[in-house]
């Protein structure tokens, strides 16, 4: 996969602009853009599955929510505040969950795979909503947010910076993965799985590896979200979250990595300004999504493509 020069320039400029926002110290923008960048990470991780491996998963909210709840649990019950401990633990926990859920759901394919992933997410939603000790539908506070020596990630500026670093790192990591041989195998599976198998690829294992990697990065997004807000709730597991995320990926342009970033930024702003104009801002978003799907089949990223196709 080649990133066209103009896209690269746009991404670098965008990253620089987002970085400069740190110095504004403005409460609203740090929170709003921090949240939006988290969605960017979340959407890129789903793009690995949807856009590259051709796997439409609705389990992504599960990994986001699990990481957030894990952070709350580690902090509230075990007093772990260092991200050096909590981040690896949360990611490992989410990775394990992704391994299990992926191993089971990938036995199905097509629409059945979608349904199984949705079922797992709903199971977790009701579990965290109803089981005692998880705060019910109100959710939980993260009593002590991640802290490393003098660096307190509960501070908005610090959290924002951490999210910015995570976003850039996630993009570069995923770019490397999809450009490498592993990414090519995923693209092959998306195109023609039977052919891949008869060429000698154990396609199930590759799909599971992609599912775990994508789940882990969704977990990173959930971890950052709990860090930024200091609050987790069962709505994280809602099917709406998975659905909106899928929409973000398609709106931005699947199979591009930068597309979902554009989608997340655009939807973020659309929601923010739409809310100020009308209470029915969802209708605006809906109309916009329909227009993009109809007229820009490659999503927003399609607008940025060069001459080649």
């Amino acid at each position, binding site marked *: 996969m080649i990133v066209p020069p103009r896209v690269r320039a746009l991404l670098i400029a965008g990253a620089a602009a987002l970085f400069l926002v740190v110095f504004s110290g403005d409460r609203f923008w740090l929170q709003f853009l921090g949240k939006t960048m988290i969605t960017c990470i979340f959407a890129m991780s789903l793009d690995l599955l949807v856009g590259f491996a051709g796997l439409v998963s609705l389990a992504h909210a599960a990994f986001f929510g699990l990481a957030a709840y894990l952070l709350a649990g580690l902090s509230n019950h075990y007093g772990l505040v260092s991200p050096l401990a909590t981040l690896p633990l949360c990611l490992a926990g989410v990775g394990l969950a992704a391994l299990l859920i992926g191993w089971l759901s990938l036995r199905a394919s097509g629409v059945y795979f979608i349904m199984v992933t949705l079922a797992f997410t709903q199971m977790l939603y009701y579990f965290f909503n109803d089981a005692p000790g998880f705060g019910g539908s109100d959710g939980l506070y993260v009593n002590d947010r991640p802290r490393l020596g003098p660096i307190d990630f509960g501070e908005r500026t610090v959290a924002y910076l951490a999210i910015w670093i995570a976003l850039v790192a996630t993009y570069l990591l995923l770019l*490397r*993965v999809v450009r*490498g*041989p592993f990414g*090519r195998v995923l693209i*092959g599976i998306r*195109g023609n799985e039977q052919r891949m198998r008869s*060429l*000698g690829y154990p396609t199930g294992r590759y799909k599971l590896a992609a599912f775990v990697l994508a789940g882990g990065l969704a977990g990173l997004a959930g971890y950052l979200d709990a860090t930024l807000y200091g609050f987790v709730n069962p709505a994280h597991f809602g099917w709406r979250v998975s659905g909106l995320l899928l929409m973000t990926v398609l709106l931005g342009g699947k199979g591009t990595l930068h597309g979902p970033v554009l989608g997340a930024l655009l939807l973020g702003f659309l929601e923010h300004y739409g809310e100020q104009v009308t209470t029915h801002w969802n209708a605006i978003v809906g109309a916009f999504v329909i227009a993009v799907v109809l007229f820009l089949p490659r999503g927003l990223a399609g607008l940025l493509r060069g001459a080649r196709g």
Partner: protein
Amino acid sequence: MAETLLETSLLSRRFGALAAVDSVSLAFQRGEVHAVIGPNGAGKSTFLSLISGELRASSGRVRFKSEDVTRLTPDRISRLGIGRSYQSANVFPELTCAECLWLAAQSRARPSMLFFRPAETYAGIGARAERALQECRLTARRATPAGELSYGEQRQLELGMILATEPELLLLDEPLAGLGHDEAISVIALLREVARSSTLLLVEHDMDAVFSIADRITVLVGGRVLETGSPAQIRQSRAVREAYLGDEQP
């Protein structure tokens, strides 16, 4: 003395009451072009799928280089050295010729090595893909997406993808189906070339092609072996003529 590369013994596959492949026992010698012919519904493609692992045998055995491969999955069988093509061209339409071949060649690399480094930097894989590109005579179409190739070229590419996996045995399911006259000639030439260094199991309807390139022919009718022999023997066989070849003189 010829060496038996692949052997099926009493291989059967039933779909409900229908025995698509019925107790087929055949031996395929290394270096030979062995064609399997028969009327539509004779079980030829099913037979190939049983060998390639895409269908499970109801009973019987498949041995490749004396190893029992009956229950192995398609990817394992491919890695053991059996490549297969399909009745209609089966390529990756979105990828260019070079990328398709690259993907085929990469299948022989160890999976643990497959993260992170940009794909282009794996020289061994690139060299193998390049060789396959020349073998299937598509160097001029290197950067063309497979979906934009002519049907004949797609069949060439498919053959190239199999060659890039460096198989010892090629299972080819009607490589000439759907080709125009000129395209068929170029694919036949390609098959002859491949046959010089590999073993071929060929399922094909084009009788002229079969009788001109096969060393040995098996006639399958109703899932059963009617006759196996050299092209001359098959041509003279009365049973074959009655059951299958009809009036058409090959």
